[in-house]
């Protein structure tokens, strides 16, 4: 019953989306407010039915109804409740259902909070949202129905892949999807602007918070996934330049560029045409990611060719939306008026530079990810493009970007003073040089690039602090005055500083982890005491334990520093009987922002166990950085300007508003 109800709710959501896709546009053409407002109610109803459908699948998983194929293949009655729930999106069908539910959620949010939008813009935006939604509802109903029943219901399910039975699955995919799908809003706004042939600073004021929300989630989602891979895979890698990761990095890079160009548009009414293009590209890259991961084209071009239904369907959606929106762009973009002028050295100029490097970085990832696929299809040659390629091509793009980053916020709009900005960054520069000199002295004969990279990171962080110091007048005026001013600064200034500092923090983490990581790999017997990174780890022994749906071997290590015991670490290996597979549960010991990392390998015939111990200095900064960035995003989002919202248009004007 529940499965059928869920299925039916999904069909109703599709029907609502189809209405929402057509009626509001007709309404806008006829200037009929009633027809335009249909979008609002259908978007909310669509959210209700998509939500019901998703809730139905969750209930089926929770109640372990193995007569449903999706539950049978991905669940097990003994599985802990939390993994029964997260297992809903731990598979193709369920994750697509989550995708459309989040899409419906964003549509509902625009409908619910978009009261101050001009009604024709809102009608168009919601209609475009409905086009996307209809395509994906169809995709699910035709090729990936999660509510299919089995003829002879089995007693027990096949269980979820053990690697996915982790708290990471509860958080990472929903975050990532909120990011990916969130960009659909900027896309819909861009397409709506193109259809209407009208765009102004107020448009950017609406688009920016939505983009920011999506960006915050995507930032956290990527960081979360990276940390998950780090502790789950068992050798402490945190980024692999895998196509799946690249698929999430590309929208992030484009989205970051979009955030910055939307600032220019909002403040200065410039870069309109470019901002529209970026909004289209960002969501297109989200769709591309969906295609890459969902079609199976990554595993092999041939796997795609042998079971093409899903892949071809997504490819069609991809061509339709990307091709369609770009055609619309080519056709209508020239109708949009160019905005304000600015000198090359100016805040706008700095943001354009940011966009140039971010989009090139995005293009690099795009080329590196798709080139092998294209080459294989065209010539049949198989090549590999992996981490060494990306490290070599991607890193050089970030060096100028990060060098320029502290200058941007210190430059004035329209025409900036680069010398003045340089003078204000003097302290940051000196701090960077000091850091480089100290590191060189300390690691004599060690890596030469690492101190330079750390210096760059210190410069970026110092620059973010300098910006706040400058704006609050600290060091120039009395402390209480400066503090009051600092509190009075727009939140978006604080947001910028936090987000920029976050980038520096990530860089420090990456450099320290890759350069000064120490490792110990050996077969250990009880009472062996290896020394790693200043810590002594004594293997006390190995015990067996029974979990809810697995058995595990647990090794116990006593960690001592200078003979003083500080902690006990218990890495384990789990065997999942249902799937006959196993996972490594690494043990992590956090000291400050550094970590000790212990994972287990095979047990030998002589009772010795393969052990890998790493000391990873400052590794946690790699994930604190994105958290700082996201926090900066939140601060910006809470800026007064965005909270209060755009001013209401005057009755007489055609919803055209002044920039400031």
């Amino acid at each position: 019953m529940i499965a059928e109800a869920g299925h039916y709710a999904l069909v109703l959501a599709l029907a609502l989306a189809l209405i929402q896709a057509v009626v509001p546009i007709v309404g806008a053409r006829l200037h009929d407010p009633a027809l335009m407002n249909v979008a609002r109610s259908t978007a909310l109803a669509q959210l209700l039915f998509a939500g019901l459908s998703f809730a139905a699948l969750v209930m089926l998983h929770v109640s372990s109804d193995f007569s449903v194929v999706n539950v049978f293949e991905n669940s097990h009655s003994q599985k802990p409740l939390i993994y029964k729930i997260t297992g809903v999106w731990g598979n193709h069908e369920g994750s697509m259902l989550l995708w459309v539910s989040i899409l419906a959620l964003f549509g509902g949010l625009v409908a619910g909070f978009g009261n101050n939008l001009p009604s024709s813009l809102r009608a168009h935006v919601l209609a475009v949202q409905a086009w996307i939604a209809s395509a994906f509802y169809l995709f699910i109903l035709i090729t990936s129905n999660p509510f299919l029943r089995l003829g002879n219901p089995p007693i027990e399910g096949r269980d979820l892949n053990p690697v996915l039975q982790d708290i990471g699955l509860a958080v990472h995919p929903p975050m990532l999807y909120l990011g990916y799908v969130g960009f659909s809003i900027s896309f819909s706004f861009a397409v709506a602007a193109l259809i209407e042939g009208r765009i102004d600073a107020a448009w950017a004021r609406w688009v920016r918070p939505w983009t920011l929300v999506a960006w915050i989630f995507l930032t956290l989602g990527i960081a979360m996934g990276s940390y998950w891979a780090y502790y789950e895979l068992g050798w402490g890698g945190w980024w692999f330049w895998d196509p799946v990761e690249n698929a999430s990095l590309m929208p992030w890079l484009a989205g970051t560029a979009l955030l910055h160009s939307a600032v220019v548009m909002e403040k200065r009414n410039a870069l309109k045409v470019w901002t529209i293009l970026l909004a289209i590209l960002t969501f297109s890259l989200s769709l591309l990611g969906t295609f890459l991961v969902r079609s199976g084209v990554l595993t092999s071009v041939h796997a795609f060719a042998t079971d093409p239904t899903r892949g071809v369907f997504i490819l069609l959606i991809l061509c339709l939306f990307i091709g369609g929106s770009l055609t619309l762009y080519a056709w209508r973009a020239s109708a949009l008026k160019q905005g304000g002028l600015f000198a090359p050295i100016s805040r706008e100029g700095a943001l354009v530079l940011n966009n140039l490097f971010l989009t090139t970085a995005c293009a690099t990832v795009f080329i590196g990810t798709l080139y092998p696929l294209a080459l294989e299809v065209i010539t049949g040659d198989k090549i590999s493009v992996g981490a060494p390629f990306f490290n070599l091509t991607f890193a050089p793009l970030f060096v100028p970007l990060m060098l320029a980053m502290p200058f941007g916020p210190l430059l004035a709009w329209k025409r900036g003073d680069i010398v003045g900005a340089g003078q204000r960054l003097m302290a940051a520069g000196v701090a960077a040089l000091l850091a480089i000199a100290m590191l060189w002295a300390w690691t004599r004969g060690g890596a030469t690039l690492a101190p330079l990279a750390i210096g760059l990171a210190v410069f970026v962080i110092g620059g973010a602090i300098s910006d706040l110091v400058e704006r609050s007048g600290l060091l120039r005026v009395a402390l209480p005055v400066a503090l009051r001013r600092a509190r009075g600064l727009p939140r978006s200034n604080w947001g910028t500083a936090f987000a920029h500092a976050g980038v520096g923090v990530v860089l420090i983490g990456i450099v320290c982890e890759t350069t000064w990581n120490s490792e110990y790999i050996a077969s250990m017997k009880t009472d062996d005491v290896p020394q790693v990174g200043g810590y002594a780890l004594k293997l006390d022994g190995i015990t067996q334990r029974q979990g809810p749906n697995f058995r595990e071997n647990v090794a116990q290590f006593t960690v001592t520093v200078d003979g003083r015991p500080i902690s006990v670490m218990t890495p384990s290996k789990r065997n999942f009987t249902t799937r006959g597979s196993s996972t490594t549960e690494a043990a992590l010991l956090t000291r400050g922002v550094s970590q000790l990392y212990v994972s287990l390998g095979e047990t030998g015939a002589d009772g010795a166990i393969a052990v890998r111990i790493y000391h990873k200095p400052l590794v946690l900064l790699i994930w604190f950085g994105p958290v700082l960035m996201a926090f900066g995003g939140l601060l910006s989002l809470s800026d007064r300007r965005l909270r209060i919202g755009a001013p209401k248009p005057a009755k007489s004007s055609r919803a055209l508003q002044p920039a400031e």
Partner: protein
Amino acid sequence: MKFGFAGLVAAMIAIGTPAAYAVQPDEIMSDPGKESRARDLSRELRCMVCQNQSIDDSDAPLARDLRLLVRERIAAGDSDAQVMDFLVARYGEFVLLKPRLKPHTLLLWLLPPLALAGGGVALWVHGRRRARSAGQDNSTAGLSADEEIQLQKLMAGEVSSEPPS
């Protein structure tokens, strides 16, 4: 987006034999210098049955064989380049995670710098065109003689120049 990294993680584990992760204790060479060379080379070589993993990271049996092969060649006195050539001769270009610059990889290597250069040139051209068209347009730039005189008067007057912040 499947489950992002989880998909990757699952794929990696599904492919390899369970439980053995990357470099094993018994593979490590006694000479730390040679071992570190072997590790560096391993990071550039692909485990061909895996999805985009280097043999240094992979737990597949093939990756282990390749790791042992690399160490064998290093022990035999090969230079890094010779080891790579040996593996390419045996397994083809596919084994390299960083493709060599050849006619069929020309675009791969050239497109990123071209994208940057092209973007830069496009910006420059666009900026000049905007500036020129703005220069012809009296409303935004360029002052008439009268306005110049007026401006001079103003500047000479009490107006202090406030630096932009």
